[in-house]
């Protein structure tokens, strides 16, 4: 899907958009790689997915020994809000469905 954030166009697939939304929706605003795996479906895809999002500037990575934790950057927050806005506009974001 195409996203315009700060007048710049980005192309994300649905799993990447889902990671941004999860990070915006969980109260602690951070995910481990194994949390990302739940969205991606498998480890390799999760690694690819976060690498791409970090490269685009949507995620920042905190690395301690083998543990990696990801959080949204300010740009990432705006991108997640844009995904949500699009969903609301299309009538896909139903308050009742929110966890």
């Amino acid at each position, binding site marked *: 899907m195409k996203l315009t954030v700060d007048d710049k166009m980005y192309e994300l697939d649905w799993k990447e958009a889902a990671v941004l939304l999860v990070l915006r929706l969980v109260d602690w605003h951070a995910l*481990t790689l194994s949390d990302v795996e739940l969205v991606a479906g498998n480890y390799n895809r999760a690694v690819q997915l976060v690498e791409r999002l970090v490269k685009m500037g949507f995620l920042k990575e905190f690395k*301690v020994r083998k*543990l990696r934790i990801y959080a949204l950057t300010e740009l990432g927050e705006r991108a997640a809000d844009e995904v949500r806005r699009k969903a609301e506009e299309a009538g896909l974001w139903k308050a009742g469905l929110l966890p």
Partner: protein
Amino acid sequence: MSFESIAELYELSRAIARAFEVVKLLKKRAEKHIVEGVPPKRQYVRFRVAAGGKVIDLTEKQVAALLVLSRTEGAEVLNAIARSTGLNSKLALGLALQLKAMGLVNLIITPQRKIVMLTPLGQEVAKKVEEMVTETAFPPEEGELI
């Protein structure tokens, strides 16, 4: 409606469905891992450090945590700090929150993992504490040749 916009709607709906499903699961998991930080009791000020234009009083547990962090490139998992300081996870989190309130560390918290990172002020304080500890432990001998 064009093919492109239908495809985009489909992608969007999949993203939302997956995100909601994962958030629900993560929140459920998080309920089992709620640890509220409790600051360790009986802490006494042992060090006084001037840094960042202010004087900072530190207890021995706080110093221990800062030393662990300064020796691991400024970031460490909370469990490692708990082990090094002899505290359980509840008290270690309380200690980390104390250091955060003093502006010495940042905390990245997920339900299962917690990372403690030194701030620039924390790095300065940790460096000074390290010097003080080294001086106390190994005082320069009189008449030492340089």
